[in-house]
């Protein structure tokens, strides 16, 4: 069972990463990136590494999501003003 779950998560992650890079809309990329983080959190949990999963959830996805979104908002605000 665990093998199937891991394979499907990997396929999801690869698809997500292609979308993140190929996407033209930056905000979509950020949301997809947070999805990517969530996928890796599940993987870490399956690999019996709860500490890493917690850290990735809180730091890798939470804080970096906030930072990326705020950066995007700044850039958008300027572009709209222009």
């Amino acid at each position: 069972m665990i093998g199937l779950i891991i394979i499907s998560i990997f396929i999801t992650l690869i698809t997500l990463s292609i979308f993140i890079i190929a996407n033209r809309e930056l905000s979509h990329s950020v949301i997809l990136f947070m999805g990517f983080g969530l996928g890796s959190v599940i993987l870490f949990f399956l690999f019996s590494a709860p500490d890493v999963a917690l850290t990735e959830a809180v730091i890798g996805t939470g804080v970096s999501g906030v930072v990326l979104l705020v950066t995007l908002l700044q850039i958008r605000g300027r572009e709209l003003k222009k």
Partner: protein
Amino acid sequence: MLDSFNQTPFLHGVITIGSFLLLTIGLIGALSKKNLFKIFLSLSIAEASLFIYFIGMHFEVGKVAPILSKEVDKFSSNMVDPVPQAMILTTIVIAIAVLSLALSFVINYFKLTNNLRIDEMDELGESR
């Protein structure tokens, strides 16, 4: 058929191939995309793939987390190696520190020039 999916060597193969595909996607994205924001996103993906690879390679089916609980009351060889987890914990924090510093540079650069494309960054170079 399904049983062979749960074997450790097979899982390691999946993890290696998958995370190196992710690494390839991330690095190629970082070096072929022109948008600064996208470049740093791609680099984050590449780093995340390494985290998955390293943790995954030390996982074996049936091993438990190296934490004592009600069910597990003794440290034994049936536990996952704790050192990679500690290393990745450190590296995740470093990655976010670098990412936020990079993004602050991007914001400041954008405020000065209104430019986000790396191929239009022509401030540096031989002066004419």
